[in-house]
């Protein structure tokens, strides 16, 4: 039986217009959802549990009540969910968050594999998987497009490095972050949604983890709306596609971008 953990984050929907108002990030009334990358991580975790026997626990670090991502993971089929939340963890940097998540994984105990999404779509850092692995002292297999459990108890993954794919093997326990190529995330089932709606999700604070608030060194002194894109759109018209194409070609050369 494999003991699998999947780390998921609650983020504003990607369709949200995100703006800074009075120095704070605001996404209006856009819904909060599971980080889209993490749906792939949950899918990978559930696939591994189904194929090789095992249980999946979803783990999220967030503020009080930030359980959207966990509920989605439960609805997809995860067996349990844990929220790590503590007022002393209100603003963390990556390394600090990694130390807290690693402590939670140790607290779950006897974990074989931890799945992560590629990156959080709010902070856009993509650092946590490798950092959690480092704190735990486990191998980090980041950006994996496919995962296979080997007969000797290790795993083989294909890592997408941009220029090509690197096939690597590692012993368990290990941390794996996945890309979209892992396969389409399943839709939550009706039963899953009911189970998620009723679930009492345990909350672990620093006391439960036996941890002191880790040091935070990265700070965000200022948030800004990006400069407005000043464009005057010029519509290119003509009597035939040829004429339009000729005009557009001249315009592009005049812009000196070719």
């Amino acid at each position, binding site marked *: 039986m494999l003991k699998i953990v999947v780390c998921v984050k609650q983020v504003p929907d990607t369709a*949200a217009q995100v703006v800074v108002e009075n120095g704070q990030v605001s996404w209006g009334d856009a819904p909060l959802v599971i980080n889209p990358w993490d749906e792939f991580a949950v899918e990978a975790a559930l696939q591994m549990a189904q194929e090789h026997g095992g249980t999946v626990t979803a783990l999220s670090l967030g503020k009080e009540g930030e359980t959207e991502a966990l509920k989605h993971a439960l609805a997809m089929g995860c067996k349990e969910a844990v929220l790590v939340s503590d007022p002393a963890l209100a603003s963390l940097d*990556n390394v600090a968050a990694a130390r807290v998540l690693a402590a939670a994984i140790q607290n779950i105990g006897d974990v074989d594999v931890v799945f992560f999404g590629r990156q959080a779509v709010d902070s856009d850092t993509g650092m946590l998987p490798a950092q959690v692995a480092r704190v735990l002292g486990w191998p980090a297999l980041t950006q994996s497009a496919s995962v296979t459990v080997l007969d000797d108890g290790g795993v083989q993954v294909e890592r997408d490095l941009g220029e090509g794919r690197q096939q690597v093997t590692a012993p368990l326990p290990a941390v794996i972050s996945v890309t979209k190529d892992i396969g389409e995330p399943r839709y939550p089932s009706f039963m899953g949604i009911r189970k998620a709606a009723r679930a009492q999700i345990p909350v672990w604070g620093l006391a439960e983890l036996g941890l002191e608030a880790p040091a935070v*060194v990265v700070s965000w002194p200022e948030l800004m709306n990006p400069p407005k894109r000043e464009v005057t759109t010029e519509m290119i018209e003509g009597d035939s596609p040829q004429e339009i194409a000729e005009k557009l070609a001249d315009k592009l050369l005049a812009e000196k971008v070719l």
Partner: protein
Amino acid sequence: MAKNIWVYIDHFKGQAVPASWEAVGVARTLAAELGGGVTAVVFGDGVESLARQAIQFGADDAVLAEDASLADYRAEPYAALLTSLAQEHSPQVVLFPTTARCRDLAAVAAVDLNTGVLVDVTALEVAGGKIVATRPIYAGKLLAKVTCAAEPVLITLRGRAFPKPEADEARSGDIVRVEPVLGEDEIAVKVTGYSEGEGGVSLTDAAVIVSGGRGVSNNPNLQPPDGLSEEEQEIWRAQQGFKLVGELAAILGGAVGASRAAVDAGYIPYAHQVGQTGKVVSPDLYIACGISGAIQHLAGMRTSKVIVAINKDPEAPIFKLARFGVVGDLFDILPPLTEALKERLGK
């Protein structure tokens, strides 16, 4: 040797990623503002020429580790070596290009060195002796200023956000060789193989990107071969559309991008996806063909210098961001556009 500002030279099989040289340029600027000098850090096997090139691009000297165990990037041996060098020499700053490898390496080094990483930075300033970085968050919907109170400050720099310096072949500097700190038997992760990606220009480095969306399959006049299912017919049509997109990209020396709708429909692999859950790109020229301009797509390309939209629907939101717009069918417009540019560029 070993100055206060370090630049890690990322490479793929001995070929430096262009953003590594941009990072050397940034390191020079930082050295001018903070005082001190620039050391390039090069790990690999048979990569001495990269150390020399780094010096030509502006580093004062280089630290070079060459070993079979470093032939392919792996977090364990690379991070162990970088960390031990940084502990020995206490640099103020280590710069990296933002690549999949460097996100990994900087992340792990930050844990080992008890410091932080400023990720995917697009601007840097020095204020009162402190480095203040600017980075896009929420896929560029917002910008954040970030600082790191511990040293070394680890910074990954977004490709194409900083100018590439000119190489000066007359520049020389010391190259100091160091040994790896982990033996192969101490490394748990083993590389067992490689499959090359598709050739062609990488999206994030490309100066020109021509992208196709769901519209690339929309040409009822094209007659697919017999015996295809409906889905196969659609993909066949999309391939004809992407062929036109690819021909234009090829003439311009550019890369092919895609919307998520095109990727999800199976028209083109995910590696081409531009947007919030694809690649964030910033080319000089971005030509969107049959793409409506959903907010998640715009998030990935809104900082392109010049945007061109070709779309049948005059109301498509993509036109709001475009410098030039053509309301029309991409199947009609792309072939003569490719011809016209071919002629003008003398190709």
